[in-house]
């Protein structure tokens, strides 16, 4: 069983290079010390308030995401290639967005079907023809990757709207450094704490042309009922910017303003963590109480920048995903460095037929789904589950895509009996402003249940600190 998956610590020959320095650490850690450390880690997470909210399931709504102390390690060589691939993809996705809201060259060239883009719900008619500052739509691109071999990575999906989880990347490191300072003295782990400074610099760099001073940047949150509220306040705090809700902002004349005790203050850049539909009740959903009425008029007349730009979601749709390698070739004239997972579009009759015939071997996902809900993992499902899902698929094929079950790599993970391999994925956060930046780190999510391939925190996944070993 174990050999069918790439084990990031042990390959056929023994301990892989990036993990050699950790051998003594975990082998010499007595079980009771481990238990103490694990409790200490949880205490730290509680104290920092790093929780995510789950409502409607009873119990304490503020949950901790399980933290596994065993770090995941990349060599600088491994990381360099990933970094090039991630930045390339982030550039291509932005080029695509600025194209489809402008002349749509990629569609005219017949490289992507028009209907897939223009009839997509995430395509915002309200911003067609509008060019945001520097032509950038997606300022924080979260790219979900899985590994299947020493040199084989696949992109599972792109997140161009408001990818969450970066606070875990930062806090996992913080907690590890507090608990095991010697590990960081002995090993050259590349730091990730520059992320907040880079994010702020990215947001500053896309201030509107009308802004003639140091840009005023705010983070717009839907409020404390949102599952990622902790992250919103954490990031605002690290960047030294205001955390605001819709009611703290208002539109007057050509600008957006923040209410302060010293009177209204003009806002130049809004890092929003609310969905397009809720941004402005005068443009989108009229019942939204989370947004700022009139904001889209200010945005479209160049008075404020919204990050990510409204409409950015059309690039990370699961049906569009198939075409990202094509975007890389079309806009950048380069060969894609990162590969896509082969994907069948159930909207296409031929491909649907293949999916239906091989349903037990495939992973089937909703085109607009997220969080690991509404999906079928064929090989892990019983007959009845598959049959129920097959009926849903037949009723509405275009709502689904299918992919092969990937042999996700494993990383050593602390379990009751010691350490054991558990499946992991990787979400790095690429920043796109005047420059394209990627801190040497990412969020590693781990499926804590033995054999499970679902890493989502809403489905029992945990997180790990992710190391990139700096060069000598």
């Amino acid at each position, binding site marked *: 069983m174990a050999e069918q998956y790439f084990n990031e610590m042990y390959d056929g020959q023994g301990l892989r290079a990036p993990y050699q320095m950790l051998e003594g650490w975990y082998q010499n850690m007595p079980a009771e010390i481990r238990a103490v450390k694990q409790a200490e880690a949880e205490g730290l997470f509680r104290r920092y308030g790093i929780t995510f909210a789950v409502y409607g399931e009873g119990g304490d709504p503020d949950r901790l995401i399980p933290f596994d102390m065993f770090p995941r390690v990349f060599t600088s060589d491994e990381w360099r290639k990933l970094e090039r691939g991630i930045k390339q993809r982030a550039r291509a996705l932005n080029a695509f967005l600025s194209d489809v*809201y*402008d002349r*749509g060259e990629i569609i005219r060239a017949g490289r992507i079907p*028009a*209907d897939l883009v*223009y*009839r997509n*719900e995430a*395509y915002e*008619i*309200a*911003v*067609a*023809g*509008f060019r945001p500052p520097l032509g950038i739509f997606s300022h924080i691109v979260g790219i979900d990757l899985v590994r299947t071999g020493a040199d084989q990575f696949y992109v599972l999906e792109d997140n161009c709207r408001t990818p969450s989880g970066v606070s875990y990347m930062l806090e996992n490191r913080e907690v590890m450094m507090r608990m095991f300072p010697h590990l960081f003295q002995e090993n050259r782990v590349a730091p990730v704490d520059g992320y907040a400074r880079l994010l702020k610099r990215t947001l500053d760099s896309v201030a509107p042309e009308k802004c003639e001073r140091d840009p005023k940047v705010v983070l717009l949150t839907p409020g404390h009922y949102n599952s990622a509220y902790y992250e919103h306040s954490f990031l605002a705090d690290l960047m030294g910017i205001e955390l605001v809700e819709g009611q703290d902002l*208002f*539109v*007057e*004349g*050509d600008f957006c303003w923040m209410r302060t005790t010293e009177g209204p203050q003009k806002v130049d850049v809004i890092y929003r963590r609310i969905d397009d539909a809720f941004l402005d*009740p*005068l*443009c989108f959903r*009229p019942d939204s109480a989370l947004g700022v*009425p*009139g904001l889209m*008029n*200010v945005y*479209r*007349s160049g008075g404020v920048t919204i990050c990510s730009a409204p409409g950015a979601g059309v690039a990370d749709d699961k049906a569009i995903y198939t075409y990202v390698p094509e975007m890389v070739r079309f806009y950048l004239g380069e060969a894609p460095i990162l590969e896509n997972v082969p994907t069948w579009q159930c909207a296409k009759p031929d491909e649907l037929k293949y999916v239906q015939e091989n349903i037990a071997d495939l992973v089937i996902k909703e085109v607009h789904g997220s969080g690991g809900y509404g999906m079928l993992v064929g090989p892990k499902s019983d007959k009845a589950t598959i049959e129920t899902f097959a009926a849903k698929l037949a009723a509405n094929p275009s709502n689904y895509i299918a992919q092969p079950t990937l042999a996700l790599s494993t990383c050593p993970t602390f379990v009751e009996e010691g350490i054991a391999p558990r499946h992991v994925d990787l979400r790095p956060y690429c920043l796109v402003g005047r420059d394209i930046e990627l801190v040497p780190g990412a969020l590693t999510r781990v499926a804590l249940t033995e054999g499970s391939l679902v890493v989502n925190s809403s489905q029992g996944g945990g997180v790990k600190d992710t190391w990139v070993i700096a060069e000598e």
Partner: protein
Amino acid sequence: MILTVLHKTRYEFAAPVRGIIQSLRLTPAKCEGQRVLDWSIDVPGATMSTPFRDGAGDYLQTVSLRAACDNIEITVSGRVETFDTAGILRGHRERVPPRAYLRGTIRTEPNRAIQDLVADALKGHEDAADLDRAHRLAAAVSQALPYTPGATDAHTTAAEAITAGAGVCQDHAQVLISCAHLAGMPARYVSGYLNATEDSSPHEASHAWAELYLDGLGWVGFDAANQCCPNDQYIRLGSGLDAQDAAPIRGLVSGGSAESLDVSVEIAAQEQRQQQ
């Protein structure tokens, strides 16, 4: 023809409200069928933004009142020279790809009755030219929904209107959009004014119709309520996916209390008045 417009919208609040903000789509579109001679939007006491043109070619403007008030009055007045372009929208600069208007909203979502209406209307003409099919659809909608003020309200969907079997221009436009989508033609909702009487007396004139994107012609207006295509009696303001999306005024009141709305729209043909 020169049309003069005087459009007043007054909101009265039972108790003073804390503030009001509105997005106005109240400036005539720039296209071959019409030329603005003069136009003004006046909202006493309010702050107005600089108008801008969105990707659909509409002029939008934000107006806000940030003080306690118990009413707000928007007065739009102006003169527009109009030309008959047989309903074809020409010389209109816009950036939205027509195929984006194939998507429905909750207000234009078809039901079985609308599907049947389309099937009947196009029976034997499924492969006819777009223009022919569009006329057939408009005629069918007009027949299915006799003009009946009061049978529907501002929130009525296309499906509800067809079930009621009656409606006003808003319902005609939304049902026609729904039909066009089923027939594979992009379609959108248009807000504007209509000078509907033969004589030159000013009269109630807010109006709405649909535009369908036809192969070879581009956007063409269809006024199913009046069984015609817009001509020089029409003034086009702006468009959207449905009545809400294309509304001339979208607003929000903070600290809201019961409101009453009073709208008067007067339109008249200036030429004729001068002749008398």
